[in-house]
């Protein structure tokens, strides 16, 4: 098995042993049950997209922080840093494992309302991308907080700017016009919206935003990780 796949395996084992998989599935099951009960309500698509924004986003953003603070509290990171670990593998396996978990949860949510009656590709791409972006956002915020409580406090402005404004725009509470395209999650929301309701969206923008933002976000997260966590 390649070094990357081995680390990938260990990341899943850690997620499972730290009950992150179980917690995610339980929360998703509760959300899914609520959605199933109210699946015939008129606004259910909007509620579904909103929940997909909340549930996998939280899995990515908070659980990556939780994983790192657990490693920091147990003094594991210094032990990892003296090994020949490939830091790209180390970060990417964490990001992908959490994003796959978030995507599975978001698929469970859509199944509970739509069964198989949704656009699988755009929905999965949108929810996976939103998980990756949230995880990267968590990694970028991580070096600026010394513990999980401070991280959670820092998350309020970060969530408002990066997630909640796009969410309010989607729900019709705000009307930002073309400015909405400047917010990082907009492309993912559009893809999820198309996946759920079949609504016409600007695919070129949605795909381009993901193609640009994920590498850019990863570059920022990696640089901060090396500068603020590895060298200090």
């Amino acid at each position, binding site marked *: 098995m390649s*070094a990357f796949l081995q680390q990938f395996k260990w990341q899943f084992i850690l997620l499972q042993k730290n009950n992150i998989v179980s917690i995610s599935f339980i929360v998703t099951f509760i959300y899914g049950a609520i959605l199933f009960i109210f699946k015939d309500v008129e606004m259910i698509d909007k509620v579904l997209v909103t929940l997909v924004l909340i549930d996998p986003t939280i899995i990515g953003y908070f659980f990556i922080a939780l994983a790192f603070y657990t*490693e920091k509290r147990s*003094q594991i990171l*210094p*032990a*990892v840093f*003296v090994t020949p670990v490939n830091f790209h593998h180390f970060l990417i396996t964490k990001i992908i494992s959490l994003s796959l978990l978030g995507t599975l949860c978001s698929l469970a949510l859509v199944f509970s309302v739509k069964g198989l009656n949704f656009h699988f590709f755009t929905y999965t791409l949108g929810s996976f991308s939103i998980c990756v972006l949230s995880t990267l956002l968590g990694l970028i915020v991580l070096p600026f907080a010394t513990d999980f409580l401070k991280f959670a406090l820092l998350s309020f402005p970060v969530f408002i700017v990066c997630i909640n404004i796009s969410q309010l725009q989607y729900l019709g509470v705000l009307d930002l016009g073309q400015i909405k395209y400047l917010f990082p999650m907009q492309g993912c929301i559009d893809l999820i919206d198309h996946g759920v309701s079949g609504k016409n969206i600007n695919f070129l923008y949605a795909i381009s935003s993901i193609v640009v933002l994920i590498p850019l976000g990863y570059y920022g997260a990696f640089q901060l990780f090396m500068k603020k966590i*590895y060298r200090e």
Partner: protein
Amino acid sequence: MIQVEDLSFKYPNNNTAALNKLNFKIESGEIFGFLGPSGAGKSTTQKILYKILNDYQGLVSIDGKNLKEIDHTYKERIGVCFELPNHYLKLTGKENLDLFAAFYKTNKERNLELLFEKVDLLEAMNKPVETYSKGMKMRLNYIRSIQHNPDILFFDEPTSGLDPVNAQKVKDHILELKAEGKTIFITTHDMHTADALCDMVSFIINGELVTTDTPKRLKSQYGKEMVNVELKNGEIKDFPLKELGINAAFLQFINQKEINRINTLEASLQEVFIKITGQSLQL
């Protein structure tokens, strides 16, 4: 072999040098002790030798090659045993070792059972580390650092948190590693451990090396070359070690009453440290 020449380092936004022109050399098959109080620069030196801090001045060479020019694979060759336990608590001891082994390319021939047996952890091998005592976690630290058979080993307080029996076992293992030709760098506050293990010791204070020598020479240099004799009647006298066997006063003294004890007046490494640096290690 590790050679350090004029090694200096300053942390960003700090005007004081954390390390100031350090010079030392560790031969293969040698145990080198790095002794100093907290904040003296031991951790910074270690981070440089682990290749975590790269923006230092001076030269660090490993087997004659500049460390700055050696790539990331250098870390395949080093093993680090930390002062405090640092493991994934929800994983078993074996899983912890397997997880770390996955970071190495050259780590295929491990005999995990033998490693766990070596430190009396065989029965706990498949138990979660959260159920281990501190001493067990420290022993797991130790075997994790050697599981990939590194050439260069760094031990930070290797006997900390261990009971005397296990501390002695770890010391014996370290001496076995030395006999295998490993280059070993130990940082410790424990002068008995340093004295028992190290071929050479350096004292570091405020980022500067105060002295580097063998423990034997330091103890002899800073102690008195005399014996102290106490008789059963409480009478005590000191005699020079030189020509002790033909010293008439000594012979007469020990023959007059039963002897309670005889000690050499060689300084302990702790006393030498205090004499040289004017500081205690328990800072």
